[in-house]
């Protein structure tokens, strides 16, 4: 039986950078990623499937980010929402690993 992959929703406004982020994440055998350039697409994807992490990439307006954070948290209080900085491979793995390690260190975490 294959291990369940960490499912990541990446939201960003720059199409080419978002594509790069998705490609880097999907190279990992333990992670899988879906991308959305618009808030509507992001929310639709979030309603369709269970995500472990939402990755907020570049270009998302402040007001939109606030709405997305509230929407995702209301639908899934355990969702991890992190800001991705750098737009590429440099920090991406670090950000995901760090978020997962913090989640797993919580008293009620699911291993």
């Amino acid at each position, binding site marked *: 039986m294959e291990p369940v992959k960490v499912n990541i929703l990446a939201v*960003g*406004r*720059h*199409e*080419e*950078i*978002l*594509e*790069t982020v*998705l*490609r*880097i994440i999907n*190279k990992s055998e333990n992670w899988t990623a879906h*991308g959305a*350039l618009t808030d509507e697409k992001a929310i639709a994807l979030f309603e369709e499937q269970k995500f472990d992490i939402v990755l907020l*990439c*570049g*270009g*998302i*307006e*402040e007001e939109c980010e606030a709405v997305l954070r509230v929407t995702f948290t209301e639908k899934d209080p355990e969702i991890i929402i992190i*800001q991705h*900085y*750098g*737009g*590429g*491979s*440099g*920090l991406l*793995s*670090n950000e995901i*690993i*760090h978020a997962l*390690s913090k989640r797993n260190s919580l008293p009620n975490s699911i291993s």
Partner: protein
Amino acid sequence: MERKDFIRKGLMGTGMFVASASVGNVIKNDIDELKELDVIGFNHLPNTESKVKANTVLHKADTRGHANHGWLDSHHSFSFANYYNPDRMHFGVLRVLNDDRVDGGKGFGRHPHDNMEIISIPLEGDLEHKDSMDNVAVIKHGDIQAMSAGTGIFHSEYNKNEDQDARFLQIWLFPKTKNVTPRYDQLTLNVEDRHNNLQQVLSPNADDAGVSINQDAWFHMGKFDKDFTTEYKLKNPANGVYAFVLKGDITIEDNDLNQRDGLGIWDTTSISIKANSQDAEVLLMEVPMSV
């Protein structure tokens, strides 16, 4: 100083955001095609000499993360790529301090950045830079380059020379404001101005000495005679200073540092500096401590 004239048009106004690729397509990107290295685990190089006090953190050179890709040999003062150490995530807004050696003719292919202030300081050799804002430049020892990646840019960096290694520092700061219009700045500094002096090479202000960035940070570089002493006064006492020894031996606030050691200090208004070897060189990075 010679401030070079570069095209600084923002991407938002150029229509360059109309990317041709659709989500789902694969875009070739050399930076991500690096051969995978073994994952470096937590605290793989324990800092047994750490002198962490209430307001300091010491990173000895040999406790840094290390990745050797052959053409690229990189030491990471903070977690980066496949080096992950939860105790080395950042110092205030200073997120990345990479000490890179690049083989002749090799380099980083076209790759993206967003929402990061990226500073390159060449130590040896020449680097050729090209970006999606139409900037093409060669930076060499004595130059400093700064990019505000903001809403997104693509760039490449190659060792310009086929027969000589290039060494440079790659420094990333979290931006003061997210999603700014991308910009590029480069400056040729007079290295003589840092002899027994702290030469300002970066600031938040376009009309101040050095390159400017989208963050309340100030960088200074100094090259000192043996036994020279000086003091650095912080621009903002709420900031911290991360000192990185480029060459030789230096004492900062009673901490003896050697080449490529890093020392972070906060909750202070000034720091004392003493050179313990001839031509000792240091980079001081004053940065906000709140991300």
